[in-house]
């Protein structure tokens, strides 16, 4: 009898949906979309990259899963090698971003 292996991603259904939408937005930014707002902050070539994604739709997802979703999306867009320079990936709702003083408006 054949044995099939299924790999569980450990991602919540909400996280999975947000990952697909984030990849789409990153690859083909919709000109009329207000969110997600993606901020890539870097000091230049070879310097650590910080990613912030401000999005109301993060609300039901925990903060560590948000960070993983952002990295998975970034890897899909930039490739695995491009992601190794990233040291911070934060998903924030607008209220959380305001509280942390992230400039995104």
């Amino acid at each position, binding site marked *: 009898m054949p044995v099939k292996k299924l790999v569980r991603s450990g991602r919540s259904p909400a996280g999975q949906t947000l990952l697909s939408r984030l990849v789409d937005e990153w690859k083909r930014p919709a000109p009329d979309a207000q969110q997600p707002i993606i901020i890539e902050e870097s000091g230049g070539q070879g310097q*650590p990259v*910080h990613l912030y994604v401000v999005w109301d739709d993060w609300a039901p997802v925990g*903060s*560590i899963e*948000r*960070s*993983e*979703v*952002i*990295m*998975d999306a*970034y*890897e899909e867009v930039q490739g*695995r*090698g491009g*992601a*190794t320079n*990233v*040291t*911070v*990936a*934060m998903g924030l709702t607008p209220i959380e971003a305001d509280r*942390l003083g992230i400039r995104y408006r």
Partner: protein
Amino acid sequence: MLRRQLDATPETVADFELAGESRYWDGCQLITQGHGLGGIYLLGYAAEMILKHACFRTDRARPADPVAGFFGPIRAWMNVRYPSVDRETYHSLLFWTHYLRGKRRDIGTPLSNGLDSELMRRTRRLYSTWSVDLRYRDWTVQATEVQLVYNDVTWLRDTRIRLWS
């Protein structure tokens, strides 16, 4: 209510350092009162906090930075460099040790040879005893095992600043 307080304030890098220090002393207290497994559990937790804090600081985190944003990039980096090391839902002492050593080499500030090998030796031994899943058990442990965990975690605590500076 503590839960409401938790939800309102995201954990920071400094919180991890302070939590590690508090749980270290809680663990020592339990051991001296004869609660070996409880003591081991808290000392292992302190080791996890010390390693995580060192990893975040290596990634240039500042004390007030929220920690959540570091997990995704660390997971991605480890998937590329050490894909066979299990995260164990980010509780594995080996996962954090490999990240710390590998990342420091990557950014050109490797641990000195002596510190590096001692860190590996101690965390491997700790890993062979401690798991976050010990919280589900109620076992009697041998005094020699308690002593080894105490020695290794105390070494980590004494060395903690050198791990990231």
